[in-house]
């Protein structure tokens, strides 16, 4: 009984603190967004170059602090993962809750290829992406033709089935024991075997993911996706193939999750089914929702914050998952569009006063789509 009341007290306390934090942060990020949308192109480029330089020299500064380096690498890894989910959730407006399944596929494909067949990481990486994409296609074709939230349910189921297969297909995956001994990647005889080198490897993958995300967003395809998300019937009346676009986005998201999985396998040198459970999917979802569904800078922010904070607050680790749940609920109530939403970055406060609630729908608008 005493325990129960203590847990309840802690949860209420956590809710109150999160509530306050979200309120304060919302104000702060509104201010930031307004500032960003007001500065001119030249200053913007200047700031971008500054950030790029900082990210590039960051590991050199902390070269003697392996903890900082490792955390930075994990942050970058989650940025790839969160951006991959953002392609599905943010661009196509489809809720996928089993995203870590594709992460798992990427990791296991790389593990099996490099350990069992001594295949080079550079072949294993694209193969992982390809196979994850293939599973995305198999899952997407039947579910995305239907309207509604079928994808969410299907992906949860798929994630669980995959985990059970990984645990029980012991001949191939060695079951719960996992696959150890995944080798260091080698490029033209140059071994990636230090944190510093891994940092630059994942940084390249992050930049590739960001590049593809922006290209997608600003392409015909991206505009088609925006239209489908906004109003599917109108989009179809314009001759936009909504099903095709949604499947494409889903497959692309799966492929990038596969890339992240592949990197994870070579970096940790060990994979086991527990790395890819349902909570992992929820964590990735939290990152996207916190930062801002559909907003690339927002998602990067969300991934960074939600990777660093649990590291910093190891003491409350037992409450981690409860806190993710509370965070999701509070975000949807207080700030459904996320901290750094696309709309606020585009036009700052203007969009708020447009008198149109639908613009700020964020995740809320997804149900019953």
């Amino acid at each position, binding site marked *: 009984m005493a325990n129960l009341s203590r847990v309840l007290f802690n949860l209420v306390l956590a809710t109150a603190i999160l509530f306050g934090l979200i309120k304060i942060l919302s104000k702060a990020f509104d201010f930031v967004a307004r500032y960003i949308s007001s500065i001119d192109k030249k200053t913007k480029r200047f700031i971008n170059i500054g950030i790029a330089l900082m990210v590039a020299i960051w590991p050199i500064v902390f070269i003697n602090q392996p903890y900082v380096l490792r955390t930075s690498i994990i942050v970058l890894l989650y940025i790839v993962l969160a951006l991959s989910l953002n392609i599905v959730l943010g661009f196509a407006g489809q809720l996928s809750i089993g995203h870590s399944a594709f992460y798992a596929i990427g990791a296991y494909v790389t593990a099996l290829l490099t350990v069992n067949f001594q295949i080079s990481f550079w072949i294993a990486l694209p193969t992982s992406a390809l196979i994850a994409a293939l599973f995305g296609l198999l899952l997407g074709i039947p579910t995305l033709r239907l309207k509604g939230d079928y994808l969410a349910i299907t992906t949860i189921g798929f994630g669980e089935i995959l985990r059970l297969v990984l645990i029980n297909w012991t001949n191939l995956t060695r079951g719960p024991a996992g696959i150890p001994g995944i080798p260091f990647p080698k490029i033209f005889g140059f071994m990636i075997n230090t944190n510093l080198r891994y940092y630059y490897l994942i940084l390249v993958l992050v930049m590739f993911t960001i590049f593809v995300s922006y290209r997608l967003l600003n392409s*015909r395809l991206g*505009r*088609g996706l*925006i*239209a489908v998300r*906004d*109003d599917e*019937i*109108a*989009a*179809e*009346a*314009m*001759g*936009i*193939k909504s099903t095709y676009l949604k499947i494409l986005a889903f497959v692309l998201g799966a492929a990038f999750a596969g890339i992240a999985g592949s990197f994870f396998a070579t970096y940790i040198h060990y994979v086991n089914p527990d790395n890819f459970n349902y909570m992992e999917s929820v964590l990735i979802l939290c990152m996207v929702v916190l930062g801002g569904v559909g907003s690339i800078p927002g998602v990067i922010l969300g991934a960074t914050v939600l990777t660093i904070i649990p590291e910093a607050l190891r003491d409350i680790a037992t409450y981690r998952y409860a806190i993710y749940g509370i965070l999701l609920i509070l975000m949807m109530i207080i700030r459904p569009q996320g901290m750094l939403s696309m*709309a606020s970055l585009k036009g700052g406060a203007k*969009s708020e006063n*447009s*008198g*149109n609630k*639908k*613009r700020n729908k964020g995740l809320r608008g997804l149900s019953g789509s």
Partner: protein
Amino acid sequence: MLHVKELDVYYGGIHALRGISFDIEEGKIVTLIGGNGAGKTTTLRTISGLVTPKEGTIKFKNQNLLKIPSEKIVGQGVVQVPEGRRIFVELNVEENLMMGAYLRRDKQVIDEDLEYVYKIFPRLKERRRQMGGTLSGGEQQMLAIGRAIMSKPRLLMLDEPSMGLAPIIVEEIFECIKYLNDNGLTVLLVEQNANIALQLADVGYVIETGEIAFSGEAKSLLKDDRVRKAYLGEE
């Protein structure tokens, strides 16, 4: 230009269209009038390839539209302005219009068509950067029509363009439809407002519970007792 024959459409167990047939001649305005749930929207969605009929044929310029996927039908120039306007609220006026040209690649002609739309609807030009969701109902209807024009239609199908608009705005919009028709566009106009639709159209079809009840010259339908009683509210 368009020949619809014996269309039968089911939604699960609901028999929505029961053998609908009608023809549209090139350059004409044809109106399809009927009450709530008569099957007008279903007819348009079937022509656009968004609903698959159980029986029947749809021919557009000697092509079988039922064999063509919906996005190709738009490419053929059969374009509809959906019921309730359905503007993209997250996009501004110009982005909405450009979405109409989604399937086109002729950049230069697209720009000319954009100017053409702005010429017909100067109000849209004034608001080109305004978000679609913040436009008034009448402006949204203009935007929906403009967006359809950006798909280079040869047959424009309008689903209840007068819905929820003040009479003076309706008049303005119907004048624009007339202008488009005078410039060579064939129009299929779906309406509940029989009076104004029949005044504009050349030919009218009256649809009741999924069937064509009767049809004829629009002018003569205006004088027809059955129409006057059921759709013009006269005794």
